[in-house]
């Protein structure tokens, strides 16, 4: 426990120090990576903890971005305090509707149904003139928090933007950790491992999964809101299955069984992309090969490297701690 806390504190200190140590470009790059990490962690609540492989999380991500674009008043900044909740609400509502229908299916059918719904949202923005159709739309000014005309928080500054994203990322980790450890989280995992048994114990499987799916979609919306704010632009590709699949790869690289694994997976994949782009024109090919090797060599994600790097076996770290904590109750 103390060791993992120490690592968390060191990582946090490094994250706080980063904007003061590197050029602006890398601060923006870090923000982008953290946003994708948030999206990957959101997806993993459904995929890893709920056993629900969704191919429509980009739609929740993109929808929130579009809400920001549509609510931004011309060339003036939108208010963060009103547009963020509305954007997240839109994503949550989409997840509620899609989840309510898709969760009636199982396994590969669930994947196909989420894919179909995701593509429906993609084509809604692609084939109609909403927000510029296939050309997309600009978010001309980054959102702000202002009271009585006085600006309190300006996301236009890359450093401020980075810290806001970092704060939301930490809140996401805290929220997901809380959910996973809660009675709800255990019921969700039980439904994943043995649906029939979980139901016969009295757990309402459909409701549990729907709640998890909506929470997951809402967090994806937070990520999408900040992505749109950062790029200053939204396009239908933001909602497409291609992004959904990329995020799924991040989750697989990072590992399905932990809250922060997908964050690591996102950082690895995005870092890898940046590195390869700078060195070769065939970066996608090389990236693909590396991803395949990672997934084959570490089926439980790159978090398997933790014990090698930090010198403790994860098993030994969690088990006695659990037993000791439970024994205290006896």
């Amino acid at each position: 426990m103390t060791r993992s806390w120490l690592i968390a504190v060191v990582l946090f200190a490094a994250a706080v120090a980063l904007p003061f140590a590197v050029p602006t470009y890398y601060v923006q790059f870090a923000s982008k990576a953290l946003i994708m990490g948030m999206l990957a962690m959101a997806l993993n609540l459904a995929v890893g903890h709920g056993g629900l492989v969704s191919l429509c999380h980009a739609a929740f991500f993109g929808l929130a971005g579009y809400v920001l674009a549509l609510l931004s008043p011309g060339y003036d900044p939108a208010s963060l305090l009103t547009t963020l909740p509305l954007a997240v609400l839109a994503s949550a509502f989409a997840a509620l509707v899609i989840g309510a229908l898709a969760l009636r299916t199982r396994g590969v059918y669930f994947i196909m149904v989420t894919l179909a719904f995701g593509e429906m949202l993609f084509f809604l923005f692609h084939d109609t003139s909403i927000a510029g159709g296939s050309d997309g739309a600009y978010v001309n000014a980054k959102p702000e928090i202002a009271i009585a005309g006085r600006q309190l928080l300006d996301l236009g500054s890359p450093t401020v933007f980075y810290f806001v994203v970092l704060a939301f990322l930490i809140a996401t980790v805290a929220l997901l950790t809380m959910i996973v450890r809660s009675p709800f989280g255990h019921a969700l995992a039980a439904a994943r491992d043995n649906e029939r048994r979980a139901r016969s114990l009295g757990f309402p499987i459909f409701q549990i999964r729907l709640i998890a799916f909506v929470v997951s979609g809402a967090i994806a919306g937070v990520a999408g809101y900040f992505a749109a704010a950062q790029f200053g632009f939204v396009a239908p590709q933001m909602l497409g299955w291609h992004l959904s699949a990329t995020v799924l790869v991040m989750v697989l690289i990072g590992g399905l069984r932990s809250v922060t694994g997908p964050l690591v997976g996102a950082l690895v994949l995005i870092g890898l992309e940046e590195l390869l782009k700078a060195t070769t024109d065939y970066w996608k090919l090389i990236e693909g090969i590396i991803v395949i090797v990672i997934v084959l060599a570490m089926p439980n994600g790159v978090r398997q490297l933790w014990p090698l790097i930090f010198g403790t076996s994860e098993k030994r770290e969690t088990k006695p701690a659990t037993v000791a904590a439970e024994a205290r109750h006896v």
Partner: protein
Amino acid sequence: MSDVALRAQGLQKHFGGLKAVSDVSIDVHVGEIHAVIGPNGAGKSTLINLLSGELFVNGGAIMLGDTDITRLAPDRRARNGLGRAYQKTTIFPKFTVHENVRLAAQARSPAPLRMFGHVRNNAAVHERTAQAIDRAGLSVRTWITAEQLSHGEQRQLEIAMVLATDPRIILLDEPLAGMGQSEARGIIDLIASLKVGRAVLIVEHDMDAVFELADKLTVMHDGQVIASGLPQDVRMHPAVRTAYLGDHGGGS
């Protein structure tokens, strides 16, 4: 004694043209073990699935106490006090014994789906978990992963999980299947203790165990009840002797 925990009336279930269960009625009282026997294909497992809600009836009604549960989903039936153990052990293999049973205890706690607070920090759930594990005789195995248990211990775990949900009626589907003599002894004693304050319906092939445990006996054949009553009466029933017990030789 005459407190009916579960009453099924005129249950019908057909799969296409096959009548798996036709016009089956059964009353299970609090404080008694009601055994359902019959040859393979008699509809016993279908009956259990109808009672637990994994299959819906095509006709008839099921009452759990005063509640009509005929149209309720399995999880709603469970929350109304119906617990079941499966023929094929269906525990959560990667969880410890404690985690398996705690999940069951949690399902019947006042806030089973609370999203905050660590799952370990609920004293009432923890208490019920420990009690159920103790009742099932698994205390020394509390921290073992379920997949590491022996077959017999996994059946004990099944029963511990059912106990932790504090049901009014327990459905047991062949609890002794695939079990050796010595293992079976412990489970039989455990099952005998379950009827205190609740009702037990058991489907079982082991006739010695059935006649040792059962307070009431129902015999099914081709989806129908051919006899029902006290074990000694049913044993003498002519239709039963030809249809079922005769096959086993020396049933008397």
